[in-house]
């Protein structure tokens, strides 16, 4: 109905670049209204939200490390999403990665070496991979809906971490408080820039993003995933295994989420705690779509999402705005970006390949 009003056929290429600006303009307008209504200087508020967090080297470092787990999870998820495989349990796979990688650090506590960190990373990725494999196997073997199983397993993983940290893995010198020992230096990600927390996990994330990009655009496996997502009938006709795509998608996204978990734990926390992620795995789903499921788009989207967190804190610290206000603002920002973003995507689709009726 309303859609008929959209002049899609006449869409020109520059609109594609204009829509992010439209989203930005809408955000600014809304921000001005919202903050003025609250009796604050709207431009100061916008500056505080978007610019102020990045006015120091430390702030830029934080921007990058907050984007890192989002990037790792979202890039992994994008593989599956392209193949119409819906892993929404990255949060659980991230947690499992943190558990397995952190477990290695604890198991070798007291006799570490330079080999420890690589081993932790492998264990973390393996943990996420294994946790991701469960919904894939349940889907392939029993036809169980993966959205549901991966979501449910997330809560299981989080509770399992709670059990370990409250119980067997508690720091023996920690007065029975629920946290593990602090990892030894060998178990910590090296810091890249003195005076910041910018750690090697960021580089890892960038490398992984490039690999996924090559995988999706240059390899036959990646091609199969895309075909399975865009034209399941064609994929079946060509003899591509749908089950293979499901498994592959979950293994990749699970492993990368696990990597995000151990990178977060060894990079910024330095121990296991009852909570290792404030919902990166869920936020990454939004990031993946904001980035149009393209690895480089996801890099930008994860930086935007990361800035949203920092901006929220900045508003609280500098303007004494309650968290609730920043929550509203963040939600609106996402709506605008999503709304305008997908308009572009849809247009491209329409002009490139006419949709099957």
């Amino acid at each position: 109905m309303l859609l008929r009003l959209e002049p899609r056929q006449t869409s020109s290429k520059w609109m594609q670049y204009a829509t992010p600006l439209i989203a930005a303009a809408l955000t600014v307008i809304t921000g001005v209204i919202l903050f003025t209504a609250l009796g604050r200087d709207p431009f100061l508020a916008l500056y505080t939200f978007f610019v102020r967090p990045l006015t120091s080297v430390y702030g830029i470092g934080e921007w990058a490390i907050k984007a890192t787990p989002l990037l790792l999870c979202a890039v992994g998820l994008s593989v599956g999403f392209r193949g119409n495989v819906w892993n929404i349990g990255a949060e659980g796979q991230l947690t499992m990665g943190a558990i397995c990688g952190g477990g290695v650090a604890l198991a070798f506590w007291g006799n570490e070496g330079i080999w420890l960190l690589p081993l932790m990373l492998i264990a973390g990725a393996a943990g996420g991979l294994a946790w991701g494999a469960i919904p894939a196997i349940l889907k392939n073997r029993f036809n169980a809906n993966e959205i549901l199983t991966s979501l449910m397993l997330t809560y299981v993983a989080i509770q399992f971490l709670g059990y370990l940290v409250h119980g067997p893995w508690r720091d023996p010198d920690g007065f029975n408080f629920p946290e593990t020992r602090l990892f030894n230096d060998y178990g910590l990600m090296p810091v890249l820039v003195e005076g910041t927390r910018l750690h090697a996990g960021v580089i890892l994330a960038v490398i992984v993003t490039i690999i996924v990009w090559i995988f999706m655009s240059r390899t036959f496996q990646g091609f199969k995933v895309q075909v399975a997502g865009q034209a399941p009938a064609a994929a079946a006709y060509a003899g591509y295994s749908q089950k293979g795509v499901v498994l592959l998608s979950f293994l990749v996204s699970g492993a990368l989420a696990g990597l995000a978990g151990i990178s977060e734990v060894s990079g910024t926390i330095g121990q296991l705690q009852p909570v290792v992620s404030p919902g990166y795995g869920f936020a990454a789903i939004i990031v993946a779509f904001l980035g149009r499921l393209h690895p480089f788009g996801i890099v930008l989207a994860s930086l935007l999402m990361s800035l949203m967190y920092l901006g929220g804190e900045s508003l609280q610290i500098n303007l004494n705005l309650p968290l609730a206000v920043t929550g509203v603002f963040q939600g609106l920002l996402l709506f605008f970006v999503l709304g305008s973003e997908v308009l572009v995507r849809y247009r491209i689709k329409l002009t490139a390949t006419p949709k099957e009726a």
Partner: protein
Amino acid sequence: MDGMDTAIAILVGTIRAGTPLVFAALGELIAEKSGVLNLGVEGMMLVGAVAGFIATVLTGNPYFGILAAIAAGILLSLVFGTLTQVLLTNQVATGLALTIFGIGMSAFIGLDFVGTPIEGLKPIPIPFLADIPIVGPLLFNHDALIYFSIVMFALVSWFLFHSRGGLILRAVGESHHAAHAIGYSVVKIRFLAVMFGGAMAGLAGAYLSLVYTPQWAENMTAGRGWIALALVVFATWRPGRVLIGAYLFGGITILSLHVQAVGYDVSSHLVATLPYLATVIVLAMISRDATKIRLNAPASLGKPFHPGA
């Protein structure tokens, strides 16, 4: 006799714990049957909870609160509907964004109402029936919303499988292109389904803030919206199984608390995983029969539809 009282207490507790899930899951079921996956249930519940609470405080009448909660749920679902149906955004991402917005929005408008005490909704014993031993307390001594949840269950069941509207809804969810070709307005029908989902999520929120724990506190739904989402799939999109599943979920929680209260020690963390593990296992078991699933699962769930294409 003591054992009987405890059993009744557990069952009544189960019904109460399951009721918000029944509302939210029935709403989501209708939305999904039309082919729309809305992951924003948690956000809509919270906004419903706060709106219902505020209206109750301002009017002193919890029934106005219920209406306000429904309205608020619909309002938020309209945002989702506009984005996903008109602007064709991805439903998964939009639903998650809706939850982020709902959490923030509910906290924001509820700031001045945190800690205001209200008179919650009281049970309405049904004359005579409520006095029957065992059955009375179990079935006929509840608050209005619990009775209403059963009414809604009956209505949704009838609508889906015995009405023309239900047929159209299912057709749209099954194949939007076919439905469109026959001449149904897919977007309009999906909008209505999403709005119904919003209304029911609002009711679920109102149940929490007006009946279950009559108060407003940020994030008071504590993840129940996600459980409702899980329930819909757990129930393979059948209202009867939604009802059973909701009470099963409620029942496991209540039972594990009772087991602890009697003095059996259980790892609280591991017990907390039980409902989730149970869902995964049950789902794997019931999904094995592929044809059964296909019979109920809306085929075009989550897929965008554009009539011009």
